[in-house]
């Protein structure tokens, strides 16, 4: 993955618009957050291989960027996106890595299901 180039990422997002897609969306503090920092309120969410189609997708803000997808019937967004890659399977992988290289958020789009 490379650091986000917003213009290039915008072009890639545009290329997925209007298609039937599978999505991976994840936010996490890690399962040990409340172990190392007692009292920490550990929240996160994960969805993998839900099917979506978006009509408009945008990269917004300064780095770390926000990415929002407008669906015919709702929204998807992620904030804190720092890195991206169009992988060898043509999937658009976006991730937000913190200062120590740990993933905090992931948003991925694919025309085929992600592996289990």
């Amino acid at each position, binding site marked *: *993955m490379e650091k986000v180039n917003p213009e290039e990422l915008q072009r890639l997002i545009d290329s997925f618009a209007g298609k039937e897609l599978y999505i991976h969306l*994840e936010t996490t503090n*890690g*399962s040990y957050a409340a172990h190392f920092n007692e009292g920490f309120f550990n929240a996160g969410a*994960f969805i993998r291989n839900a099917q979506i189609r978006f009509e408009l997708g945008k990269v917004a803000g300064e780095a770390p960027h926000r990415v929002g997808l407008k669906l015919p019937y709702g929204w998807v967004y992620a904030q804190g996106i720092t890195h991206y890659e169009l*992988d060898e399977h043509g999937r658009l992988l976006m*991730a937000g890595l913190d200062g120590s*290289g740990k*993933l*905090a958020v992931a948003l991925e789009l694919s025309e085929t299901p992600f592996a289990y």
Partner: protein
Amino acid sequence: MAETIEKERAVLVVFPHPDDEAFGTSGSLSKYVDMGVPVTYACLTLGEMGRNLGIPPFATRETLPEVRKKELQAAADAIGIKDLRMMGFRDKTVEFEDDEKMVQLISGLIDELDPSLIISFYPGYSVHPDHEATARAVVRAVRRLPEDQRPKLYLVAFANDTEEGLGQPDVEHQVSEMLDRKMRTLKAHSSQTAYMLEGLEAAIAAGEAEATERFAKERFYRYRWHEDFEESF
């Protein structure tokens, strides 16, 4: 506290993530292998949800499982484990699987391998939801056996309130002579351990007694059947 490593008929290790075996058990496992004890490591997931992707990133969310699969195989090789089983579950979802199915999975392994010792996590004291789900499945499977036929359970507990709840570990293995293999096991999991190893190696090289001591001792709790975490399942 038991200190000598007893020879076992067979050892079954059940952990949910590649690297769960590394810090707390790989020295003991190396000893069992050297004693000629058959060791089976059932690793439930490939640690797909690991957070460390590095700066610059060495993997993506989608390539991490392949990275960790190779690391797991290399770690098993470093220990000398010949029977490594990747059980195909997904990281962070073990607790959401059907509980009976998980018990059956462990019961099946016990029936097949007839272990005299099972190494896993201690329910209630193992922090990560996958650890806890694994620990519950192991205890439940063993509970279903007649008392005189139950394998021993050596369980890893590291929650912050472990000492409060369980006191001191029952079993302590001195694995000083296995430190080389233990270090190679940890290094095999470099996607997870690189950061921690820097500090550890430096501390050991500097002869820091506490670090070396901690690294050379592996501690386990026997399961307190008299304080079972549930009445039945």
